[in-house]
């Protein structure tokens, strides 16, 4: 492959892509089936991919289902997002050591391995772009995120099988990747055979693609790829009306719906853990028994915990109502003020992984005064 013209990889070609990434020095992560879910983990080749597995998702529900075909990427998204890699759940920031005249501070070693992400959905590319704004574009960048981001090679795989919880079309983030990737694949599984349309999105993507055993794409391949995305776009399980959503939420902070949703919400923080854009963290200190050394660890935190808003005298957001309102208003409204984009990419994880099935699209519709969100699916 020698130009930016789309090409076609066979299954062997995809294996070649994984091997080429490994040969380039990347730790290759991709979708794999574990504990009844599709999760991201180290992969060595096609055998590690969840061949023939799809997912069935709804409010509070996630199940793997056998598709009856050989699709390697025939699911939507699982509980993991690439946030785990770029913004790790636990990260030691620095260590201190007691000295004769006090203590010394030493930054913790942070040399993340260059990592290739195989199977990045369009909604996840959007989520990465959202987190770039949080961690790279403020007055003080987060060097840990910056290192991981610079060392990541993104292989998008266009979504062909949106779940019942998906609404990327509403959020204008998918289902087809429109940039932000190094390489993008569309899995094609039709009479012409099991193959992948390969598109180049960056200079290093081009360099890698040139080493692959691929044939130029034909018009039929391109048409088939477009059809996959069009079909996916037409099968969104959910939709969210986003017109005027910032004002809608910011001007309805006392809406009765917040009380109603608070009666269902368990304040468990699952939605924030699975959300690919939620970025909040806390810092914790650990020390050995003698106090000789101590470490400061940053870990994911959630606005659903009582501690999150604690100041001397009490917790600011003591009620579940206030915490749910904070989460949803931040995600869908104040995010625009802070970062110029929505904090929601329409991946639907918060809906599927909510133990009581609270549906963010339904909550928005309720605040709009609509009875039920009109389903496009």
């Amino acid at each position, binding site marked *: 492959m020698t130009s930016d013209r789309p090409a076609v990889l066979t299954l062997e070609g995809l294996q070649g892509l994984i091997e080429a990434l490994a040969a380039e020095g990347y730790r290759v992560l991709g979708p794999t089936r574990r504990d009844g879910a599709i999760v991201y983990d180290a992969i060595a080749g096609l055998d590690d991919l969840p061949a023939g597995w799809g997912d069935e998702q709804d409010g509070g529900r996630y199940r793997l289902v056998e598709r009856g075909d050989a699709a390697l990427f025939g699911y939507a998204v699982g509980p993991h997002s690439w946030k785990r890699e770029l913004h790790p759940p636990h990260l030691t*920031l*620095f260590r*201190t050591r*007691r*000295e004769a*005249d*006090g*203590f*010394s*501070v030493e*930054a913790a070693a942070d040399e993340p391995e260059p990592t290739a992400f195989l199977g990045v959905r369009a909604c996840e590319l959007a989520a990465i772009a959202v987190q*770039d704004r*949080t*961690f*790279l574009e*403020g*007055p*003080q*960048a*987060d*060097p*840990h995120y*910056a*290192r991981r*981001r*610079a060392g990541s090679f993104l292989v998008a795989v266009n979504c062909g099988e949106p779940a019942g919880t998906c609404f990327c079309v509403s959020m204008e983030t998918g289902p087809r990747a429109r940039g932000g990737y190094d390489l993008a694949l569309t899995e094609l599984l039709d009479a012409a055979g099991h193959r992948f349309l390969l598109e180049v999105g960056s200079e290093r993507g081009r360099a890698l693609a040139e080493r692959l055993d691929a044939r130029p794409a034909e018009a039929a391949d391109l048409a088939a790829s477009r059809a996959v995305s069009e079909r996916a776009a037409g099968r969104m399980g959910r939709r969210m009306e986003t017109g005027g959503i910032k004002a809608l939420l*910011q001007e309805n*902070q*006392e809406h009765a719906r917040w009380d109603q949703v608070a009666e269902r919400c368990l304040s468990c923080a699952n939605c924030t853990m699975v959300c690919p854009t939620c*970025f*909040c*963290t*806390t*810092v*914790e*200190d650990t*020390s050995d028994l003698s*106090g000789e050394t*101590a470490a*400061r660890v940053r870990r994911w*935190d959630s*606005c659903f915990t009582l501690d*999150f*808003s*604690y*100041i*001397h*005298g009490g917790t*600011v*957001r*003591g*009620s579940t*109502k*206030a915490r749910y309102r*904070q989460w949803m208003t*931040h995600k869908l*409204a*104040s995010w625009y*003020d*802070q970062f110029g984009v929505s904090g929601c990419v329409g991946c639907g994880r918060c809906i599927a992984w909510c133990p009581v099935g609270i549906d963010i699209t339904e909550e928005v519709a309720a605040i709009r005064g609509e009875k039920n969100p009109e389903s496009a699916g």
Partner: protein
Amino acid sequence: MSAMAAGAAATDPMLPAVARVVGRRRETADVWTLEVAPPDGWAGFAPGQFNMLYLPGLGEVPISMSGDPAAPGPIRHTVRAVGAVSAALAALRPGAAVGLRGPYGSAWPVAEAAGADVVVMAGGLGLAPLRPALYRLRAERARYGRVALLYGTRSPADILFRRELERWRRQLDLEIEVTVDRAAGDWRGSVGVVTRLLPRIAFEPVSSVALVCGPEVMMRFAADALLDAGVPEPRIHLSMERNMRCAIGQCGHCQFGADFVCKDGPVMSYDRLRARLKIREL
């Protein structure tokens, strides 16, 4: 992207400098002022800003600077010993090491208030982040109209910086009114909420600038009283307090509506805050 990321990777803004405590002064029963030698690279601060002070194994808390920003020498932080970290900070002796990051946050509009009457309203420990502004107002006293400090505390024993306030009052260059929530018979001053002091001072409301810091409920009432007196919303400035973990807008804890109190505040004008202050548990 990679060039930007590589450049950004240079330093970790979460890493504290190790600074040295050079002095410690008891202000009240549970409030101490900690004097810290400026660490390398310290470029000063503006009135109203804060530092993150850290102790190994315990944690890190935001503490406002309470000294004169124009004075050379140590950085002063006034701490109330209420939690594990603040109690340990308040107990540090000269010579001890303390982690320091900062300064962070927005400043009181001291220079912008030139030519105007200035009303400073403080509640409890809220006087500490206002003291740097008071130093600057006094230092350039001729640039301002009437300057008044209205200060409310729980009891006479809780009055911060008492000797300094008495000296300033004797020098007559600022009007100082103090009130307490409760007092024994030997207190000859006012008893009651700080807003009741406002009618006692002479100032030109429409053109004055108000600087307010204290518990949130006190600031709401103070702002209402100032508005009732005729001070325009954009000229009333409050210093907000929220939980903070990073001070650089990345941990998410200090959000107040769309603002990160750490970098968009803590000092914000009332016209920006009004709608949000009326919402409970925001």
